[in-house]
């Protein structure tokens, strides 16, 4: 426990309240490349302490930034949180009690933590150089970021946990003009990656831009089509709020309890997977991370829950309380996995949609969506005919009823999914 938190805990122990301290500190280095030239480099530091107090069934929350508060500043933090608990009327459902936490492997890499900034900067220059080598007619841009962060939870039920994790993010973007085409690639990791990973990013973006520049609008189509993991991620985003415990509790979900049959696929949230960027050993209120079967063979089995909404719904927390020191816990996914199925879709011939955009214009409550196709292609006798600018339209609940997952999964940051066969419509 850091020194400031120790002092804060001492102050809290003399108050007649239940309390929880959540703290974070860390740093990041990130680099932005435009037109194959390193243009912006930055190094950021952040730290802060969030305090929740429970008093007579009411919750108060406040935070401070920095880890070097004076005694007066700490006293004021406690006073503010207690005062808000007195007037706030936000219901307080207790804090989690300590459960055994199993440490997730491979989410911290010393090589990222200890890399000198100058060396990270050299890696970014190397990335830009690599773009210059690989480029044809394309204009290339991209980013590279490295971060290390520590978060900790201490509460009046005896929880005292701390975890350090590292992150590496890579993105590449390629643009062709006349005719226009764009390609992008994005991936994140928990450990320092070799240069080959940067090469891969650039190559993928270039390949996609070339495909995109050849793409034309497809005639309206209705029927069987394949969604690549990227497009499935967008569809899942439209659907997913229906599984958020707070949305369920407040009547903004299709579901009021588990049990409904919605298709024939399995969807899992799993924060315990080694080396994945969405993994953690415990969540933002100290509940151990876990594997949660959200949808099992088509039946809704569970929701994404934190301690508070689990309590409201008479369920158990699934360890999905995400957090920053600036906020009270909010519900979110860790790593989302669409389980592979039986369909062999690697050599699928027909209509394939790779990427769509505009998810936030969709309606998660009615399920209606109309998403613009950034890139798709038709495969005929092994030949690729790309298309774009159509819209993929439908209702997410109807579409998921037809979903048949493929066999081979691919990871896009913290989303792991195979291709999926669906009945869909392109206009």
């Amino acid at each position, binding site marked *: 426990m850091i020194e400031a938190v120790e002092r804060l805990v001492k102050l809290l122990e003399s108050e007649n309240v239940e309390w929880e301290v959540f703290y974070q500190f860390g740093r990041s280095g990130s680099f932005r490349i435009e037109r194959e030239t390193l243009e912006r480099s930055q190094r950021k530091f952040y*730290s802060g302490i969030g305090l929740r107090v429970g008093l007579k069934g009411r919750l108060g929350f406040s935070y401070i930034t920095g880890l070097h508060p004076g005694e007066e500043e700490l006293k004021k933090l406690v006073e503010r949180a207690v005062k808000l608990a007195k007037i706030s009327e936000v219901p307080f459902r207790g804090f989690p009690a300590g459960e055994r936490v199993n440490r997730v492997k491979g989410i911290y890499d010393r090589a990222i933590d200890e890399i000198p900034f100058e060396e990270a900067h050299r890696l970014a220059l190397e990335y830009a150089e690599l773009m210059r080598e690989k480029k044809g007619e394309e204009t290339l841009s991209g980013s590279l970021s490295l971060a290390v962060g520590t978060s900790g939870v201490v509460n009046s039920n005896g929880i005292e946990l701390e975890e350090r994790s590292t992150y590496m993010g890579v993105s590449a973007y390629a643009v062709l003009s006349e005719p226009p085409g764009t390609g992008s690639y994005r991936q994140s990791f928990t450990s320092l990656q070799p240069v080959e990973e940067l090469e891969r990013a650039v190559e993928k973006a270039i390949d996609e831009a070339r495909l995109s520049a050849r793409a034309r609008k497809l005639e309206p189509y209705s029927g069987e089509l394949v969604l690549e993991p990227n497009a499935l991620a967008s569809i899942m985003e439209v659907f997913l709020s229906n599984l958020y415990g707070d949305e369920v509790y407040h009547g903004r979900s299709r579901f009021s309890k588990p049990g409904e049959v919605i298709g024939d696929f399995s969807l899992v949230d799993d924060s315990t997977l080694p080396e994945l960027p969405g993994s953690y050993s415990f969540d933002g209120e100290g509940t151990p991370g876990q594997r949660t079967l959200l949808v099992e063979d088509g039946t809704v089995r569970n929701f994404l829950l934190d301690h508070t909404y689990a309590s409201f719904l008479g369920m158990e927390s699934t360890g999905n309380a995400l957090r920053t020191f600036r906020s009270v816990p909010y519900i979110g996914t860790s790593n989302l996995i669409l389980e592979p199925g039986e369909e062999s879709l690697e050599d699928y011939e027909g209509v394939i949609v790779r990427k769509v955009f*505009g998810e936030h214009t969709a309606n998660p409550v009615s399920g209606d969506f109309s998403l613009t196709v950034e890139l798709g292609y038709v495969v005929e006798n092994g030949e690729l005919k790309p298309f774009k600018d159509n819209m993929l339209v439908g209702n997410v609940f109807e579409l998921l009823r037809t979903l048949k997952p493929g066999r081979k999964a691919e990871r896009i940051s913290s989303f792991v999914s195979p291709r999926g066969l669906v009945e869909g419509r392109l206009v």
Partner: protein
Amino acid sequence: MASHIKVFPFMPCGGSMEWLIKRAEELAGKHGVDYYEIRLVKVTSRRLVMSNGQLRELSSNSELGIGARAFNGTWGFSSANDRERFEKAIETAMKIAKLSRGDAEIYLGEPVRDEVELKVKKPFTEVDIEEKLSLVKEIDGLLRGEKIVSRTVNYGDSIVETFYFNSLGSEIRTVVPRIRLGFSVTAKENGEMQDFWKSFGGTLGWELIEGIDLHYWTAHVKEKALELLRASSPPSGEMDVIADPELTGVFIHEALGHAVEADSVKNGDSILAGRLGEKIAVEGLNVVDDPTLPGKFGSYPYDDEGIKAKRVEIIKDGVLVSYLNDRETAEYFGLEPNGHARAESYSHQPLVRMGNTYVEPGDWSFEEILEEVKNGLYMLGDKGGEVDTANGTFTFGAKLGYIVENGEITEPVRDVALSGKILDVLKNIMTIGNDTRVEFPGYCGKGQWVPVDDGGPHILTRALVGGLR
């Protein structure tokens, strides 16, 4: 009567602002940095969220942070929120700039010394949290109704105080108050669910809240959610679409706004690169971005590079006349700097962003526009949008609509997203209404979120409608 919002003195590092300014100068000398700019930002904010009569959040917070940039042909940036690290953040930014030497240039200009507070009639800081809580409760009560299964009310206000200084000797202090209120309902019938919402916001005080007819707007939100339950999905395909002022706002934000952000243009990421002076839209179309409009949600007096915000004519009579720019792109394109570099917070580097973007009025009345449509849609409201500026394709969402047949509004249709190509759609605008409104606050994302407003009159154009029929 206008009144002031109290400016709190910054006291970083246990020392004075003068000390920090002097220290930055010394560090720049030590590291051989020519240009630097530093923002100290204090944000004070309050937020209340209530769902179904139950309070979900009541917070009142304040924080102070620093963002420091140094330029050496490329940018070095560092930020911190621990006062012990403020000085180190400045030095880190300078060290990074030294490490990075590039060959870009920036507009410098004359030093500016100024102090601006956006004035409000009734500061929300003088309204106590209990009164804000009773407002939220009152609205929650008004939203109750038959078939309404969920209600949410969201109130937020913030004061952002920024002290900006740079190596030219600029020292600018700004105070920007911002207030917002939104409420939504979800209606349910026979297993079908629909929602509807309304947002208000501005760089205003409590007078914004006092000016809202809560009875009218809560009834409106409920009525529209129920109407959506009865509505069928719109048809699909390319067709004539009348956009209401709110939908025109998101339309122009996506169809034009992002593609004229000069950083995208410079980086080869905009289909409008190289088209200044070119006719890209119909005659009579005038599009403006104006962060100086009083009280709007996207308004600000100076941008985050210490450049005074300016009204920019983007399209004049169908011709692309300017890009929105920052210090670097103004120099690059040889344009007059127009103050559109905005950062989400002290810990973000400014990017070229919109403020309040709108289509200026034409001379058609709504009735005249309606008469033009034989077979099409009248779509209303803003559900957000997204654009691929390099491909030139964009999407924008409408909250609901109606079928139009022979100039008559007929059956209601559901919310839907529409899509278009930048270079086609601006030329496909057939009529421009005379009823411009800019009062549709929102947040725009470009890796960072900033508050914006947009709007326009009713317009008639052609777009690809993603309906299910």
